[in-house]
């Protein structure tokens, strides 16, 4: 399966998403010089200001908007796994593989229900459901091809939740009928960690490393790139692969340094046509 070809076929996107992307793209265009990109990779503060710009017009840090964003991605994943289970290729998979997909599907549906309740509970209106584009799904003509997309969805999901953590930071605990008292950021991170378990398992099913080392068969896809790519080896302003950077007389490999940390994707990057944005449709 050539993922880029599939993406190229997806001309029509939700017009609302497209409108938002256009404004965000102009932000990207203003940040194309190498030096600015380098500064962005090094400075979360700068990234935060970039994010605020990308979301000018919407309220950055509005938890209703953040949870609706997460809900959209969960709708996409939940529908994808429903389609996978209903697909004629599902029965070609081993019993263990089928059980794993059912377990993951159960979680994604639970995430949708939880996030709908959270959005409602904090006074918002849950965003309308989205689906995984049928034409794209139809082009995945084997269980293995579907599993590739599952890996991309899960790894993107992990990065997407991280990209909004800053917007939930410091929000007060809220009590939601039927759920109880939650800390918004903790609650989101508990979902994000389950997405990471899914990602690790699907990668393992596909004979990939459970973590992103840069040597995987899909690691060059847009889902692993971005302003801060998964190949990043600088953390907390420390270049982990420089000699003696964190341990006297020790140098770490780039694969280890990159795999030890999962990187964020901004909403603009996630909803870009090359990633989750291109998979949403009728």
């Amino acid at each position: 399966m050539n993922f880029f070809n599939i993406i190229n076929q997806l001309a029509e996107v939700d017009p609302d998403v497209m409108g938002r992307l256009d404004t965000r793209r102009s932000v990207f265009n203003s940040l194309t010089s190498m030096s600015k990109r380098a500064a962005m990779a090094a400075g979360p503060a700068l990234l935060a200001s970039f994010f605020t710009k990308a979301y000018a017009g919407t309220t950055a840090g509005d938890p209703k908007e953040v949870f609706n964003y997460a809900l959209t991605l969960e709708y996409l994943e939940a529908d994808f796994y429903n389609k996978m289970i209903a697909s004629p290729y599902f029965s070609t998979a081993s019993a263990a593989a089928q059980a794993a997909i059912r377990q993951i599907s159960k979680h994604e549906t639970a995430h949708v229900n939880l996030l709908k309740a959270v959005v409602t509970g904090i006074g918002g209106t849950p965003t309308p459901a989205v689906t995984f584009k049928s034409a794209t799904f139809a082009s995945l003509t084997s269980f293995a091809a579907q599993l590739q997309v599952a890996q991309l969805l899960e790894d993107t999901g992990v990065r997407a939740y991280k990209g909004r953590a800053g917007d939930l930071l410091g929000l007060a605990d809220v009590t939601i009928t039927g759920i109880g008292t939650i800390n918004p950021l903790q609650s989101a991170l508990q979902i994000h960690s389950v997405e990471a378990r899914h990602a690790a398992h699907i990668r393992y099913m596909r004979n990939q490393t459970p973590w992103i080392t840069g040597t995987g068969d899909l690691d060059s896809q847009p889902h692993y790139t971005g302003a801060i790519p998964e190949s990043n080896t600088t953390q907390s302003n420390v270049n982990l692969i420089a000699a003696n950077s964190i341990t006297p007389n020790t140098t770490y490999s780039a694969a280890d340094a990159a795999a030890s940390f999962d990187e964020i994707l901004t909403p603009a990057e996630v909803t870009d046509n090359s990633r989750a944005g291109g998979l949403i449709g009728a």
Partner: protein
Amino acid sequence: MSEHSFSPAWRAQPLGRRGFLRVSAASAATVALVAATGCDTSTPEPVLPDPNLITLPAGDNGLLYSLYLLALAKATLYQKIYETPPTDLTTAERAIFSDLRDHEVAYRELLHLILDPNYLDPTKAAQLFPTDFAFKLTSFTLTTRAGVLVAAQQLEDLAAATYPVMVPLLTSSNPYQRVLLLKAASVQARHAAVVRDLLAPGSFANDDVVNAAGQLKPKTPVEVNTALAPFFAPYVISVANLPVPVL
């Protein structure tokens, strides 16, 4: 990292163990005195300060110490498995454990550097813990594949469950530490998933670790400390100063 704050009280603590012993001796003398003069049964028993008590500082540093201890625990376990792998551990599985070791060493060292910015300068570096402080592996069975996987699962599930709790508790305006831990949180979950899959195929996100809402079941700093406590004996870690999450 310039705005990093280090708790002076904590820094002095490992060097001040003699002070603890003196306090402990004085208390023992008090007990002897009370015993000699006869004591009323209603008098509360004096509590001896434990010379092996290590109290983690309040605030962000306490959380960072707690995560440092988790990384120390895992790095110690994986280094041992790397050096003397069980004979029934396959080559592919050894490669996974090698990666696990490398990741945990990176976390341990980065957290060490955050807790002591002078870590890389031998003339200025502080000692975070007493020299004989260690994560002890004696209660694990590390001579079989099943044994090392049970040990790894115990620690990885613990770490994966507490990162989502600890990250929101950080209050520093310095984003670096928070972002670092946020980025490591999902890798902890990946670790936990794969060691679970190796031990019991398909158990990567079983209902024992994921709740009905599809969320990882959380663990508080106190729960983590309780789980690790037997391995750090005779030292006793207190997390009484750490922030308490809502669960």
